[in-house]
């Protein structure tokens, strides 16, 4: 129980939080904006890293490999989107099908279950080696800048005509069709964008930890949800603006990893973290339901009469 050890683990927690924050933004797009629970991300969270490492080792430049990771994630989102819209399979099941398929795909990409990459041989964007170094290569700085750029881009996108049609699809799909929006298209587009971001996060994570592993995405959806929910609970009242909402998701992810470090520091088994995460997310998802069921306030009558 050495406080210095906890302090030492914090920079790592923050950089991991930022990296997973990008993933959580992807989850936010499907879960909150599109109103679809997309389980594809558990697979995509490995695909991005796998594609990045293989391409980097094949001599691709870092930006090109990152772009390719993003594109690979979008392809995964496209698969789920088409299963859902063109084949009429429920969204959750579509995600599970793609996720399972991606397990094989990821193994095919890497050729084995775990693919390391040596930070000495490649100019990687981020590495956990620099996490306590004060330099421009510190992953907290690098990923922080990436987060801000992504949030700015998303803020712009969701303000465009196309972005608005995506938001309205999640808010009210029947109304969206009545207003001439092809909701199948917007749903697929949202899933592609979301999974592209998740794959990008995965590519950063594989660089940070120095390897891609076929099981690195297991439970990613729950971690993403945890970040979204924590961000909501902590900053929900403060951050109303859309860009700030996305930022709160990233902060939620950072808090999650800070708590993770704390739990480890307290001497709990790191293997139990998924159980704890699951319980916390289940609890937070139940609260609105319980509130409505057991603590409902009497509603003022006659609201419609004021029209």
């Amino acid at each position: 129980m050495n406080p210095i050890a906890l302090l030492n683990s914090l920079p790592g927690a923050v950089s991991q939080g930022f990296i997973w924050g990008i993933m959580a933004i992807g989850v936010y797009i499907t879960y909150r904006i599109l109103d679809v629970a997309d389980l594809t991300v558990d697979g995509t969270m490995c695909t991005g890293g796998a594609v990045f490492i293989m391409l980097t080792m094949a001599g691709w430049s870092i930006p090109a490999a990152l772009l390719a990771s993003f594109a690979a994630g979008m392809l995964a989102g496209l698969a789920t989107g088409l299963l859902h819209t063109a084949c009429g399979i429920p969204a959750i099941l579509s995600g599970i099908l793609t996720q399972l398929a991606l397990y094989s795909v990821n193994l095919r990409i890497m050729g084995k279950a775990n693919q390391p990459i040596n930070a000495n041989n490649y100019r990687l964007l981020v590495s956990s080696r620099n996490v306590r170094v004060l330099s421009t290569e510190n992953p907290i700085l690098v990923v922080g800048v990436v987060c801000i750029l992504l949030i700015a881009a998303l803020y712009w996108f969701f303000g465009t005509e196309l972005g608005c049609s995506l938001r309205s699809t999640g808010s009210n799909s029947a109304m969206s069709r009545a207003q001439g929006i092809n909701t199948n298209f917007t749903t697929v587009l949202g899933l592609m964008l979301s999974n592209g971001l998740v794959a990008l996060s995965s590519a950063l994570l594989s660089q940070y930890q120095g390897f891609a592993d076929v099981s690195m995405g297991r439970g990613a959806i729950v971690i993403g949800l945890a970040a979204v929910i924590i961000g909501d609970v902590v900053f929900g009242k403060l951050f109303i603006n859309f860009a700030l909402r996305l930022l709160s998701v990233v902060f939620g992810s950072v808090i999650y990893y800070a708590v993770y470090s704390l739990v480890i520091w307290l001497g709990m088994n790191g293997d139990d973290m998924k159980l704890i995460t699951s319980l916390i997310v289940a609890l937070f998802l139940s609260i609105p339901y319980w509130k409505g069921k057991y603590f409902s306030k009497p509603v003022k009558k006659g609201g419609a009469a004021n029209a």
Partner: protein
Amino acid sequence: MLDVKEIWKTFNAGTVNEKTALRGLSLHLNDGDFATVIGGNGAGKSTLLNAVAGVWPVDAGSISIGGVDLTHMPEHKRAKYIGRVFQDPMLGTAATMQIEENLALAARRGKRRSLRIGITKAEREAYIERLKILDLGLEDRLTSKVGLLSGGQRQALTLLMATLIKPQLLLLDEHTAALDPKTAAKVLDATDRIIEKDHLTTLMITHNMRDAIQHGNRLIMMYEGRIVIDVSGEEKKKLTVPQLLELFSKVSGSDEADDKLLLS
């Protein structure tokens, strides 16, 4: 204008819940016709509107507007020609979006949605003017989330959205049924004004026989998936509720009309 020819629709075909909602229904609306539609529960009124709007494809028959064949066109493409207001006030607007954002969505009905900015400054000014027509004070609340509005306000907003770009056909599916009488009258009043101003061709379902007689230039009564009464012009103006009930009993061969129709 609107040409519906011999359309059929059966739901849950081949199951115990099989229900033929439209039985070879035909309807022609002239440009500028404002037709009210009445009929008992299960007469096929909403089914007719949904068939025209393209919520699902019809089993047989054809639908066209202004000479354009819509029969096999998906719902979102038909939106270019059709404005709709639903019975449920929650259905017509996006609750988590602002009033101005909802209007901006409607302003792009039938147009390609690109990466241009979703709402421009000039638009905002125009929306303020349009919202004033409703006389509900919404023009001061452009950035309020629609979810905060009352049912009547949302319904009035939906009406405005449906007519923001002049539709070739306006479909109103009992759009005042879920509102209290005072609000319903207000929304209906706004409906009349907008239809008259823009000379809109309209199909309006109502369960209120008096409204059906008072509004529009044409009255259609449906029974078991067909149109059984279709009156217009002077004949419609002189119509009274008792006469309408009598007409209905004669056509349907029963007097169940009293229970099912006299809800007003």
